[in-house]
């Protein structure tokens, strides 16, 4: 079914039609959140919330809704909220000291690189990180990112440039602390 037809069907009361949206977008949304928050379990929880909010919100959307940026917008807000909560909780040192997702005996060169990229990425501030992940991982064009993040295309271009530079600094050595 066409996306617009699926949405129309959901609006007409066919809850099961939403399954198609979840199936089509679960991988990108979970992956996106995982790259933003750095933990698959948390990302899956936030992704569930994202889809449930999307289901509730979809009844109120206009017929020309662009689904992909809209879903990523909800996901981005959830990631932001997660960080806001986490910052408060970390204030009393209670922290999130989860170890990276791979046990050391399984690490290969690729995985090592993957871990380094993730850790460098997490040193980039969240609002810039969202742009890097949307663009380089999820393949969003600037226009689509502007829609998803509610900012101008100029701002997107600026953040991607800044992101490239910050990421590079963090990847080649140090950078600031993870936020």
């Amino acid at each position: 079914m066409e996306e617009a037809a699926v949405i129309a069907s959901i609006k007409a009361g066919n809850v099961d039609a939403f399954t198609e949206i979840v199936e089509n977008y679960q991988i990108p949304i979970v992956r996106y959140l995982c790259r933003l928050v750095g933990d698959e379990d948390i990302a899956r929880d936030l992704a569930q919330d994202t889809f449930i909010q999307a289901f509730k919100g979809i009844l109120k959307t206009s017929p020309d809704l662009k689904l992909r940026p809209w879903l990523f917008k909800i996901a981005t807000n959830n990631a932001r909220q997660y960080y806001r909560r986490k910052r408060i909780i970390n204030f009393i040192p209670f922290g999130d000291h989860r170890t990276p997702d791979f046990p050391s005996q399984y690490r290969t060169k690729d995985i090592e690189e993957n871990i380094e990229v993730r850790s460098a990425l997490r040193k980039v501030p969240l609002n810039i990180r969202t742009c890097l992940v949307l663009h380089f991982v999820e393949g969003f064009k600037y226009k689509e990112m502007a829609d998803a993040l509610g900012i101008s295309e100029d701002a997107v271009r600026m953040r991607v440039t800044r992101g490239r530079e910050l990421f590079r600094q963090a990847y080649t050595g140090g950078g600031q602390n993870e936020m």
Partner: protein
Amino acid sequence: MRCNEIRELLSAYADNELSTEQRKLMEQHLGECADCRNRLTEYRQVSQQIGVLQTAPSISGFTQSVMSRIKEPRPKRYKSWAGTVVAFLRPQTKMGRLITYVTLALTVILVTLFAGILPYANHRANVALAQSIIKGDPTIAALFQDDDISKINITNIEGDIATAEIDGASGVTVTVTVDIKGEKVYITTIPSSLPNLVDITDTDNGKKIITFLKANSRVDEILSQGAIIAGIFQSYHLEVTSSNMSNDGKTYTVTVKTISDNIQTQAMLVTPSTKWTITLDVTDYNNIKIVNITSGSVVESTNP
């Protein structure tokens, strides 16, 4: 072109996000400038490096768990519910039309009747409710513990707030306001013979009036709304979890919990669900002072 000023254009060039014209200018500049060519290589490397994160995460069981959470709260009803409304508003048959008109006419009659009766009935109900809230209030019970309440006069009701005078058998009158919805009683005036919350008077009929004012809801009110606490907790909402008056009636200890979704990150040590114990000097009822505040172990976290 000045190299430093065109970094954003260069980055957009690497992403294939420039207009044809801009691209031509950029290519021309790149032909002449080794620095920018190097930077372009770096920019492209970043795309490749971050690109390794495109691997798919595990999503087993994800769809089912989302769909069951969507369906769990309540089964869908839009269709049948909306259908009934439409069938009612746009009847297709003679019988349907009859049902619609009779129902509408009856509704109009009933609404008119109720509109006349309702305020009166509502007032009566609120008077009874306010009286029963006062009777059940521990503060009032403590205040009148050795006296009998002879009469509760509801003098005014506005919205959910009632004003009442409570007469004791011994002749004491206490004025209170009652939050009917919140089921709370706030003492507005107490007799001048009780400035320090402690007084024992023998009356002619041999009864003792008021020995001691215990758990005081007005202190709670001051706590949660008053300026003293507001300064400390800023925008945080408080929930009083327990309160206790010392035996001599001079010190009142309250435990509160901060609750708020609206978290301000810069705000001091306040976290959601922190427990605070506040000790107040209530010797002078009109001038309550904070003696001591201790914080704040986390009793629960919002994100375990």
